[in-house]
């Protein structure tokens, strides 16, 4: 878009050119390149104004907020039930994790214990969501480095995951899955069948995808050493999730502060060493295998029992009872109209989202809505390091770095 020439007069830039082995004597003009806001390679709406010296990026100024929808403000006016659909729209590649993270936060505030079966169903859905999240990120990374085939292969599997969502909650992308206190319905025989089929079919597909990219010469050349960050800088920048683990820090909320029975399952936390694009790719790949392992365990050992907690004040009664019994009708009305007051309290709950620690900080003053609800959005926190990651690299590398960070615009802007 708008390009303008500018002479390099800043001493900071001169210093930078010197550090990166560029000539500082000749007054070569820098090019201003507008990357975004709607650029096909950024996979979301964010702008970066780049200062380019030839192909080398000297500086970048990110602008965000293009799809800011004021969720935190809206949440202060909505009853607790009506906030779940807002969380869908944060990281829309893995909405069930957001939904259930929020539900668990409210359950913590209300002091509700969820039965084992509901916890296991949640784990299955959250790990499916993680697979679909990582699958998008890694296959798009392939697309951006020139390999379209893998993307089409695995995209079909995402459709199958969405079929499972559809069977469990009725929606595909913005799921609004589950309820405060458990799931809205039990896993149907068809849903169980679909999950079983997925577990049989998916490993082959993923192995084929890995075979195509992991030892691919072109892919390795494009990604090794690109957008690298040290563990110290990553921690200072507040990295969490796969991007932090790629630097070698084994922080995972599922292990550190287990929620929803994650401590019942055997799985490993893959870590990288260099923190570059290739390591991030490898960590996500391995996490998909670990997620499959968790789903398999939860699917095989799915406990009997209720799929929701016994909390009539907060959990919608079954429709049959609403039509036939007075108490159920009253509760239904009160819950739907948001006339149920939550206790006074202050809680923080975090889950391992697709991109890292997704935290919910909720203050309740005893009213029908939260007094304050703050979302700790991992994308928002680590995207600020983007400038540092791409400085000194080439434009094509910046695109790959952005894809491998898996910045989701909805979560970035909330």
């Amino acid at each position, binding site marked *: 878009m708008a390009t303008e020439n500018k002479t390099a007069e800043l001493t900071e830039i001169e210093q930078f050119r010197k550090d990166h082995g560029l000539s500082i004597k000749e007054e070569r003009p820098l090019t201003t390149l507008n990357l975004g806001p709607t650029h096909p390679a950024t996979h979301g709406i964010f702008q970066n104004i780049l200062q380019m010296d030839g192909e080398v990026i000297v500086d970048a100024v990110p602008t965000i907020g293009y799809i800011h929808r004021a969720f935190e*403000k809206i949440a202060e006016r909505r009853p607790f039930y009506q906030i779940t659909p807002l969380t869908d729209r944060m990281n829309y590649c893995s909405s069930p994790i957001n939904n259930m993270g929020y539900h668990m936060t409210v359950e913590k505030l209300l002091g509700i214990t969820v039965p084992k079966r509901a916890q296991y169903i949640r784990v299955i859905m959250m790990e499916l969501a993680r697979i679909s999240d990582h699958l998008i990120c890694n296959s798009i990374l392939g697309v951006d480095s020139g390999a379209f085939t893998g993307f089409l292969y695995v995209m079909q599997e995402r459709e199958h995951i969405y079929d499972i969502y559809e069977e469990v909650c009725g929606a595909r992308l913005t799921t609004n899955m589950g309820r405060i206190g458990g799931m809205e319905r039990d896993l149907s025989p068809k849903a169980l069948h679909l999950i079983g089929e997925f577990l049989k079919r998916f490993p082959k597909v993923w192995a084929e995808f890995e075979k195509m990219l992991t030892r691919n010469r072109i892919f390795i050349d494009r990604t090794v050493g690109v957008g690298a960050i040290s563990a110290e800088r990553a921690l200072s*920048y507040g990295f969490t999730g796969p991007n932090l683990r790629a630097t070698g820090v084994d922080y995972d909320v599922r292990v550190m502060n287990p929620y929803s029975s994650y401590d019942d399952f055997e799985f490993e936390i893959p870590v990288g060493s260099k923190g570059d694009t290739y390591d991030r790719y490898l960590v996500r790949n391995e996490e998909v295998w670990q997620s499959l392992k968790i789903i398999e365990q939860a699917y095989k050992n799915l406990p009997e029992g209720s799929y929701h907690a016994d909390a009539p004040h907060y959990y919608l009664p079954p429709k049959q009872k609403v039509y036939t019994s007075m108490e159920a009708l009253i509760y239904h009305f009160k819950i739907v109209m948001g006339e149920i007051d939550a206790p006074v309290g202050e809680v923080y709950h975090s889950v391992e989202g697709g991109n890292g620690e997704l*935290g919910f900080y909720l203050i309740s003053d005893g009213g029908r809505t939260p007094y304050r609800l703050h979302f700790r959005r991992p994308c928002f926190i680590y995207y600020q390091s983007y400038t540092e990651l791409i400085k000194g690299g080439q434009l094509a590398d910046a695109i790959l770095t952005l894809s491998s960070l898996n910045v989701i615009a909805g979560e970035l802007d909330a």
Partner: protein
Amino acid sequence: MELTNENVLGKIISEFGEENILEPYNPDGIMTITTNRETIHDLIKYLRDDKELQISFLTTMCGIHYPGQGDKEMCVMYQLHSLRHNYRIRIKVYRPASDPVLPTMTDLYATANWMEREAFDFYGFIFTGHPNLTRILNIEEMEYHPMLKQYPLEDQTREDKINTFFGR
């Protein structure tokens, strides 16, 4: 050393004095303490650099508004995490609405940069020493800080605004 709320609080109080560390309480297993503007930077630096504590990860930070509370109207909450000990702590600083000025944490944590810009954008906190304290999610031309409680959401039942395409 196993970190518990008691021994962390003891260490902080012996370092900064009881007059600077106020109202410790424990709402959800995470100890929450209140401190003042003069202490907050030193406190977060101390938590980060102390060899025993190593509370060196800034998980999140946000503003809170309590209208009509005088000196305690504006609040900033910092939540820190010790990855080594898996220990979390929450620190609050209250300021009057007329003087919402605090020191920046950008020299301690790189991640504080955008968090503080967000708190400025939505609540109007001024962080002295911040390298680039501008709005982050809202437009530059905005003249108010939208998360303050005096700005209600639009009334959903208003009738003077008719949108041909989306109804209402």
